[in-house]
């Protein structure tokens, strides 16, 4: 109990504050009702922006991709777009179309991951398991294209590594048909199941004005009627050739956030089919110099969680002077802290997961169990040395 307010402060986190990632929230409560909230981040802060300054432009591509295990491709894309802008390089249209295709597959996997997490927080574990089982389909497609399920590493400075062959295109079409059917079922569940509606409708409602005032972005903002989407507002890659529709909803509550994300999944499926059917011909890569001309560039892309902004400064050398990453989750925190007030404490887990927060969780040590040796904790450096020796 704090002396000045005579109210209870409930700490949630840093271990698994509703979702399985680290952050610390403090909610001031009066009985069941939340009267104030604060946040403490940084439990998995890895100093990536600092790390970027001592790595080459190419090494950084791999570093940036590892900022996030959910939207890895979109980070690498934002970075490459910025570097290519500074280098004055035009990327072949086929490479850009493949980048867009990967980005939209990634959005489907991210939205389905979120659907599962959010359903789980609300106590709907069947929906959680269904959506995660079905999400494997899109993960498998990403693996078939790139060889990896999480860090597809599709981008190169100046192009992409993988082509979409006609056989792959057929596989993707098949997977999309299944995903479309499953998402129709999910849309039916979230719009007709009475308990589900009871836990989401009119909870955490944010008006359009409030969403704009608080700087909400991505699906969180679009569920409050803010028609803002970088893919449409500032088209990059081939989004002019293969445009997407901005999906909005007017309810502004948790329910609206479910509906917007499922509709966005349909829109991603539609645009991927269009890309596959009208894939531009041509090369996959173009040359990018080792040294990037001095200057500053801003690149913006629409990540699954909203606008992702990269500010890149070059001093003309082989390494960047500064790479600033402004991720979408950071913008949406203030909406949670503001919307929490007046709600019940029991609504906090769903409210927190409603913005689809991402902590880019990726620790720097790992526990390995090998044979009879038992558990060992390895530092990043030791693991790196092990990797070098292993492949020598």
């Amino acid at each position, binding site marked *: 109990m704090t002396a000045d307010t005579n109210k209870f402060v409930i700490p949630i986190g840093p271990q698994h504050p509703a979702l399985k990632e680290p952050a610390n929230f403090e909610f001031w409560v009066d009985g069941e009702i939340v009267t104030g909230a604060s946040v403490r981040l940084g439990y998995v802060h890895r100093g990536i922006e600092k790390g970027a*300054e001592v790595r080459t432009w190419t090494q950084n591509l791999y570093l940036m991709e590892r900022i996030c295990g959910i939207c890895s491709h979109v980070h690498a894309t934002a970075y490459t777009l910025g570097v290519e802008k500074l280098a004055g390089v035009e990327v072949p249209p086929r490479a850009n179309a493949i980048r867009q295709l990967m980005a939209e597959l990634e959005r489907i996997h991210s939205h389905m991951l979120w659907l599962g997490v959010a359903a789980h927080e609300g106590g709907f574990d069947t929906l959680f398991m269904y959506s995660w089982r079905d999400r494997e389909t899109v993960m498998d497609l990403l693996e078939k294209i790139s060889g990896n399920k999480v860090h597809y590493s599709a981008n190169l400075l100046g192009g992409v590594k993988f082509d979409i062959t006609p056989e792959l295109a057929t596989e993707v079409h098949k997977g999309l048909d299944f995903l479309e059917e499953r998402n129709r079922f999910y849309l039916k569940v979230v719009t007709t199941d009475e308990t589900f509606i009871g836990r989401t409708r009119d909870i955490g409602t944010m008006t359009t004005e409030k969403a704009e005032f608080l*700087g909400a972005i991505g699906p969180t903002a679009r569920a409050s009627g803010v028609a803002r989407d970088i893919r449409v507002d*500032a088209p990059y890659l081939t989004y002019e050739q293969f445009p997407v529709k901005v999906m909005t909803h007017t309810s502004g509550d948790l329910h609206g956030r479910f509906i917007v994300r499922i509709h966005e999944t349909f829109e991603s499926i539609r645009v991927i089919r269009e890309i596959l059917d009208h894939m531009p011909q041509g090369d996959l890569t173009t040359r990018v110099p080792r040294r990037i001309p001095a200057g*500053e560039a801003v690149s913006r892309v629409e990540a699954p969680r909203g606008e992702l902004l990269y500010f890149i400064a070059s001093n003309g050398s082989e390494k960047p002077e500064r790479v*600033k990453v402004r991720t979408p989750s950071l913008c949406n925190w203030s909406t949670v802290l503001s919307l929490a007030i007046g709600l019940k404490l029991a609504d906090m887990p769903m409210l927190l997961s409603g913005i689809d927060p991402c902590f880019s969780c990726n620790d720097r040590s790992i526990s390995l169990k090998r044979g009879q040796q038992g558990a060992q904790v390895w530092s990043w450096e030791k693991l790196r040395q092990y990797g070098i020796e292993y492949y020598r």
Partner: protein
Amino acid sequence: MASTIGSLGAAEAVLKPFATTITRPQPERLEVNIHPDNLLAAVRALVDESWGYLSAIVGLDRPAQLAAEGMSQPESAIDVLYLFCSGAAVVTLRITLSYSQAVIPTISGIAPTAMLYEWELREMFGVEVVGLRVTGHLILADDWPAGVYPLRKSFTGFNQPIVGAEGA
């Protein structure tokens, strides 16, 4: 593209009274250098005009090169960039602060989203943000030493080589 150019033109008209220099580094970008004293007025002018939204605040450390013998030593500086976006248009308000006077007023009273960005700027670059009503750390560890700002170029770790760097 036409709407982007129009949008940048509108921002230029609004910001002209506060600018020391105005440039267009890229077709979709407008960069406006302003004196720190004009920061609040410039942000207020953009917000009153409902021009876009604050998308990011970027710190940029620019330590001075060692002066040649006999020359006076220039002072190191930190640039603070306020990035406002509207559609495809990006407007940058750039202020330059010397190390000895790394102080800015908070703009969170006008643009509430600035709070987290300013908090991060204070922690990472040691820029004092007057009026920012938060204390303690946002990102750095609780026992992080005072006066150590990790994104300044002078910080190279706590006497440990940066692992994973080229050649390390």
